[in-house]
């Protein structure tokens, strides 16, 4: 493989990883944009999503990478896995907000953030107890069709990852930009008190932000499994930290910023792993973060936080 082939291959990989980070970063940004809360439980909502997708796919009889499906059954199984995963993680997000964070909303200081760290550990331990500490061979029913460009290979899974990510991010962009509830969400993110006085049910908007963010994290968790062929209780921390970095890099609270930041982190991970050494990936990512924040303290596309009233 020449350096050129490798660069091409890592472009493909970087886009896949980047899509995953972008989906995960969106959840941080949606919640932060409204509540100015860094939601650390998001790390492990993503991890739980990966397990939900694992069990749904196994439930359909897909085991490892050897159960190949085609046509309508394939589409049906993938859609079902994605939908169930997103609903379950979305529901977990809503539950965390409704039951744990809402009672703390009037409390100033870091209490809510600390709570999300606690929730993260609870999810972590539930998965260890329920699913065990060994990593799981992630089911993938895609046919082993491979396209080659020069010596770089594009597998079906990459195409699937891109399609899922594109649809979800396009859907979110449309929702936030053009629907009534999406506009209410943006208004709430800009000035919660004024939004309330327009007649917007702010509690519902906050719940929606948690649902959407957590559902997207679930999709990210499924993508993780499809991309790496495994999942484990431990995957939330490093992916979550990189995705959070992506959100800050793009400008926390900023939806397109989270997508851009996610893609950048994915590409950096792919290229630094291939051309330097995997051990350097985090060093490079966090150095870049420091550099960007020195020159653009609000991130690449600008931080967006509520106006204080």
């Amino acid at each position, binding site marked *: 493989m020449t350096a050129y082939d490798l660069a091409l291959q890592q472009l493909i990989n970087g886009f896949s990883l980047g899509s995953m980070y972008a989906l995960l970063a969106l959840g941080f940004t949606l919640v932060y944009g409204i509540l100015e809360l860094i939601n650390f439980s998001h790390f492990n909502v993503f991890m739980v999503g990966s397990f939900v997708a694992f069990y749904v796919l196994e439930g359909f009889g897909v085991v490892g990478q050897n159960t190949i499906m085609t046509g309508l059954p394939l589409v049906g199984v993938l859609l079902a896995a994605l939908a169930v995963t997103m609903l379950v993680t979305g529901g977990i997000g809503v539950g965390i907000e409704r039951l744990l964070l809402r009672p703390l909303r009037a409390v100033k200081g870091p209490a809510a953030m600390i709570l999300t760290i606690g929730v993260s550990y609870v999810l972590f331990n539930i998965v260890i107890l329920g699913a065990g500490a060994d990593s799981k061979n992630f089911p993938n029913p895609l046919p082993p069709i491979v396209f080659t460009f020069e010596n770089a290979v594009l597998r079906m899974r990459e195409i699937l990852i891109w399609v899922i990510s594109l649809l979800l991010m396009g859907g979110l962009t449309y929702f936030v930009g053009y629907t009534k509830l999406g506009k209410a969400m943006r208004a709430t993110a800009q000035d919660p008190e*004024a939004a309330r006085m327009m*007649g917007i*049910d702010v509690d519902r908007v906050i719940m929606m932000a948690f649902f959407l963010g957590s559902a997207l994290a679930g999709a990210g968790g499924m993508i993780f499994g499809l991309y790496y062929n495994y999942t484990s209780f431990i995957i939330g921390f490093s992916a979550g930290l990189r995705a959070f970095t992506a959100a800050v890099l793009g400008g926390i609270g900023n939806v397109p910023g989270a997508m851009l930041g996610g893609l950048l982190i994915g590409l950096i991970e792919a290229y630094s792993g291939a051309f330097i050494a995997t051990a350097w990936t985090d060093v490079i990512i966090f150095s870049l973060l420091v550099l960007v924040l020195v020159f653009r303290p609000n991130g690449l596309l600008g931080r967006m936080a509520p106006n204080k009233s």
Partner: protein
Amino acid sequence: MRDNSALGNGGHGGAALLEFQKVNTYYGDLHVLKDVDYVIGKGEIVCLLGGNASGKSTTMKTIMGVVRPQRGEVMYDGEPIGKMSTNDRVRRGIAPVLEARRLFPRMTVYENLELGAYTQPRGAQFDQDLERVYGLFPRVKERRDQIAGTLSGGEQQMVAIGRALMARPRLICMDEPSMGLSPLFVEQVFDIIQTINKQGVTIFMVEQNASMALSIAHRAYVLQTGQVVLSGTAAEMQANEMIKQAYLGEMKVEGAAP
């Protein structure tokens, strides 16, 4: 000349649209409104005067339900609304023009207007309301695709009033609509407020610019450290010595040569 002939006979005109009955509002331990009574009649323009921190904005927030009274009742259209959610109040026809305008700064003028109509259905009625706003403020129509945060202060105030109108309100609560506007523009804003009132919308308005406000208001209340210390028709207020000194800028100069 402005037409400020009071409705009826010096009191509020007929049925009350909004009423405060011994309302007490707190922020934590801070007692802001103390046994406050207001009566706002249907079709009136009522002005609320008062010094800084006297509780004027708190009055507006209490009407909107963002702050809730600990004791006392707020009546709207004959019904107690003390426990009603803010969105239900907006749906019932109470709309705010907030202190310092508070547009959604990163959204367009049109989106701000849409959000004003959040509790209203889309359709012919929305289009009609939009035309009404554009009719009152041709400038807003010109700027409809501009990001609200980039408008001038005066333009923002037009959008803020337009946004309140999009809710199809029966009562608009305005918190210092003339704040930070040039004298010429203040005049224009008060003309518009009067026009809106003539179209049947009741106005409850906090103002520091007392002479202007009293020139269009039917009645006024004066709030001092959370208590109503004076109320009456606009004409009575304009003639009142205390009001003249405190709000109309007429200083009595003792022993000055003529």
